[in-house]
């Protein structure tokens, strides 16, 4: 049987399963459900709206009684001020480098290990998988002191690799890719490759990677968001001279800027890239979070 027919069959069974989705409750909601949901959405959305208002108004207007509640026209002025205060351009570039490399590295490592745990038999795999799942419980934050000593010894303080390398470790990523490949990659496909005499690497490149791509995309988006938003370790490892966005925001908050509008303009600019990614790909991210969490 060729790979094409197998994947086609796989797709058909998946479609059938979805049509008879067990939990899809065919209950029609009443107006109360909509009211509560709309109210909740408003609460979730309000801080974003307020950030836009504050970033487009002068400080005096948002601190007035009653405060300005609609966006104004001072966005460019506020942006100029925040750029004079912190090197937000450099911070955005640094965050892009950090989050980009962390994403590529994490997705690669996770797909390799996830494939091995999902489909390959080797001695010690149960123990290694248990170790991986166990470490999902260990917050990496707790290792900051030795990490700091190590990067101080290597003279990496304030250098981007000090943030990139420790963030590459993602037990969640390995687990996520394993769960994804368990159901997305039929055993027959791997077996067929084996029978044809292909090496595991070849099987990985030709068969596993194409099947894994949707899962890798979701994991990539989640990793990018997490790396972009990472706070504790970057604040320790970097300073205001070579900051990521979060380090710059931290410096902006505790600096000498008392202008709330300027601070919130910084928050807006630092959040915008991730929000942009999220509005474009929100659907996939949402489904990814849902898949990654439950199928344990």
């Amino acid at each position, binding site marked *: 049987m060729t790979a094409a027919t197998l994947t086609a069959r796989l797709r058909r069974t998946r479609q059938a399963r979805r049509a008879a989705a067990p939990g899809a409750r065919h209950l029609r909601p009443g107006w109360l459900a909509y009211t509560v949901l709309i109210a909740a959405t408003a609460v979730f959305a309000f801080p974003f709206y*307020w950030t836009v208002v504050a970033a487009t108004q002068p400080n005096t207007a948002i601190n007035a009684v009653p405060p300005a509640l609609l966006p104004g026209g001072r966005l460019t002025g506020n942006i100029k001020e925040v750029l004079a205060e912190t090197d937000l351009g450099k911070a955005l570039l640094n965050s892009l480098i950090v989050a980009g*490399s962390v994403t590529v590295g994490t997705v690669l490592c996770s797909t390799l290990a996830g494939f091995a745990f999902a489909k390959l038999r080797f001695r010690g795999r149960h123990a290694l998988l248990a170790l991986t799942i166990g470490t999902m419980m260990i917050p990496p934050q707790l290792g900051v002191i030795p990490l700091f000593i190590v990067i101080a010894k290597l003279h990496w303080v304030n250098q981007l690799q000090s943030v990139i*390398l420790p963030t590459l470790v993602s037990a969640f990523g390995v687990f996520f890719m394993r769960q994804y490949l368990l159901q997305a990659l039929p055993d027959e496909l791997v077996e067929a490759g084996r029978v044809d005499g292909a090496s595991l690497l070849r099987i990985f490149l030709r068969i596993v990677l194409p099947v894994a791509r949707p899962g890798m995309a979701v994991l990539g988006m989640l990793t990018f968001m997490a790396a972009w938003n990472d706070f504790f370790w970057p604040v320790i490892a970097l300073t205001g001279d070579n900051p990521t966005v979060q380090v710059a925001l931290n410096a902006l908050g505790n600096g000498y800027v008392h202008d709330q509008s300027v601070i919130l303009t910084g928050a807006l600019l630092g959040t915008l890239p991730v929000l942009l990614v999220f509005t474009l790909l929100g659907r996939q991210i949402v489904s990814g979070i849902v898949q990654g969490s439950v199928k344990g």
Partner: protein
Amino acid sequence: MTQTATPPRFTVGPQRRGAGHVRRRGRWDVKYSPYAFVAPFFVLFAAFGLFPLIYTAYISLYRVELTDPGQRVWAGLGNYAGLLHDPFFWNALRNTFTIGAISTIPQLLMALGLAHLLNYRLRGRTFFRVAMMMPYATSVAAATLVFAQLFGRDYGLINWALGLVGVHRIDWQNGTWASQVGISTIVTWRWTGYNALIYLAGMQSIPAELYESAAIDGASRWQQFRHVTIRGLRPTIIFTVIVSTIGATQLFGEPLLYEGGTRGPSGGVSHQYQTLGLYLYDQGWSFFHLGRAAAVAWVMFLIIVVLVTLNTGIARLRSCDERALGRKGRALR
């Protein structure tokens, strides 16, 4: 990054050999290359996950200054004893627990309710789901700076709105409870939607027949929710409780930037919202006392282990109880 590129090369080598080696290569390949696949992750994990954790325990037994980390003086359990005699440690421990409770319990209950609503056949279903996730995409720093402004005592929007309905201005910064509620609000805002989606996924994997048979038995909507939905969600609920507990134990960014960061890691004028995370940072990077900070980190790790064990233990006990009850019920019938 370079490490991730090595293992594939590891398996390319034998592949180039002639066809005569196929069988032997096959055996070798099947036996050993799985390790090459998991190696990049475990190498990184050993270097940046396991080693720092173990080394933290080691450092916590020494006196180490931030200014000269190479210089170590044996302190035995002195750092831990120091913690036990420091009222600020107990204060931080208490604050971590109270903020953890205020931020986690209402959050998970609201998430459960929202997930129930999202499980209906809604118009604009995707819109609601994505909207609930937006806070999750926001960074701690950005969210906290915005809320710090909203919670301002004199010019904050929340106090202004409260004033409209006749509530006197609340001091969200200096009041112990008020500041802890403020910080918990940020946590709740960021994580409710995420947990709601996880519950939603759990709800969707509950077989519809269970609801049907419950309805045939005459169960009301509320009884269905309690006995079918909640029971079906139990593993998911345990998962979210564990994740939230771990998150709450290491709360750091929100209290650090709650007053715009002007208070540093002190956690307010009278440390009223200093968490263990802030206390750790304070010990290490304000007082330059890395050994003490490592002791705090190790204590946090132990707290997490205890809480996670408790959570899973209670969950297991309860499901055992219920199975026993169920058997009894069936016998009576």
